[in-house]
């Protein structure tokens, strides 16, 4: 379908229901789909499985869904910045599937590319490989990992056009491109939505074919998790 533009997050999330599996882009709080997350909180859908590298912080990002007990299972590589997450996980309320970061990315990419499974050396000989097929190639051992299957992907880009083409900025790119087209429906929110033809085709990171719905987001907070700075040369104190 080439008609993708929708008015807002509410329209973009039509069809979202409890019990579904979602992919959510972002690394820490960088490049997360803030508008989609707010709408998921508003909708109050529950028993969700969320595939996302991290789980946000207590009061922002995916942490908002955790606070409302909307998430049944998280698939992530690192969850260290969220106390509520750790509490729910250690108490058994929340199921967590910790996945090596490169494997997580490739399970998305495989889904996007129509590849059902692949072999990776990551996790061989560790509890991550338990119950999984292993195989030797050229004298080295590998673990078979399967592509994700998800109902919706929620991604965030810097600029997009009405044809669904996306351009990301800086390290806010991270997992967003690999989640495009990796679920049944991909919803892209962008800081700036332009008419088709406004973006240089040479500069497009993700072609619109991987995106089903696109809208211009509002009120981006873009919180910084670890503000680290250095002193200007010659400045006092």
């Amino acid at each position, binding site marked *: 379908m080439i008609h993708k533009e929708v008015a807002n997050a509410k329209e973009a999330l039509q069809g979202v229901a409890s019990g579904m599996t979602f992919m959510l882009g972002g*690394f820490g709080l960088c490049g997360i789909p803030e508008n989609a997350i707010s709408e998921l909180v508003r909708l109050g859908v529950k028993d969700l499985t969320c595939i996302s590298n991290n789980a946000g912080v207590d009061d922002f990002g995916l942490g908002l869904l955790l606070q409302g007990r909307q998430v049944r299972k998280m698939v992530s590589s690192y969850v260290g910045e969220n106390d509520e997450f750790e509490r729910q996980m250690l108490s058994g309320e929340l199921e967590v599937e*910790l996945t*090596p970061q490169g494997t997580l990315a*490739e399970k998305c990419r495989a889904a996007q590319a129509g590849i059902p499974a692949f072999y990776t050396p*990551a996790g061989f000989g560790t509890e991550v490989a338990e119950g999984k097929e292993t195989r030797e190639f050229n004298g080295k051992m590998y673990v078979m990992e399967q592509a994700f299957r998800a109902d919706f992907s929620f991604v965030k880009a810097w600029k997009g056009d009405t044809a669904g083409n996306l351009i990301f900025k800086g*390290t806010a790119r*991270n997992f967003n491109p690999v989640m495009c087209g990796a679920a049944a429906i991909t919803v892209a929110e962008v800081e700036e939505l332009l008419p088709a033809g406004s973006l240089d085709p040479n500069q497009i990171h993700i072609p619109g074919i991987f995106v089903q719905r696109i809208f211009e987001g509002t009120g981006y907070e*873009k919180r*910084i998790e670890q503000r680290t700075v250095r002193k200007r040369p010659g400045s006092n104190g």
Partner: protein
Amino acid sequence: MLDKNGIAQRIAKEVKDGYYVNLGIGIPTLVANFVRDDIQVEFQSENGVLGMGPFPFEGEEDADLINAGKQTITTLPGASFFDSALSFSMIRGQHVDLTILGAMEVADNGDIANWKIPGKMVKGMGGAMDLVASAENIIVAMMHTNKAGQSKLLKQCTLPLTGVGCVRKVVTNLAVLEVTDDGFLLLERAPGVSVDEIRKATLGRLVVPDTVPEMQL
């Protein structure tokens, strides 16, 4: 005995001109501060940047520009951004020359554990499992003993593994050690540290040559 900066300073000597280097969170991040000015190195951060520069000046922080530790950063001339799948293509595809990461435990066969303490702390492995399973050249930066004074250089890891037989070199506050078929080969002592102190702090097999020079920082 070295502090964390001292460990980073010693490891910086392992960074060679022209290297692509991935630095883990913690002590490894400090290594960038000690790399010689007269060599060219590109730092990769697995969240999707090659050519990472120093922290920004105050007021110039960009929420869209962070490293894998979620810290605000800058880029240097020649830098590039990419998605997570391509980032791990660099790592798994062995295009990164040197990987430096922290650990909770290292065994004398090169096994490493650094992602989980069952029942207590589960932060996750992040990119560490991909890094240790793929990199040819891995240096571990860590304190020789934990806060309770127990050795972190063991015969066998007690914590859930991050990777098997992958660590090549360990730099601690006490020593530089190479992982060999016979165990940890003691290469260098930290300033003012005796071989005996290192022996006492090491539970894994330790091979001590006739002379063990003191580290030059």
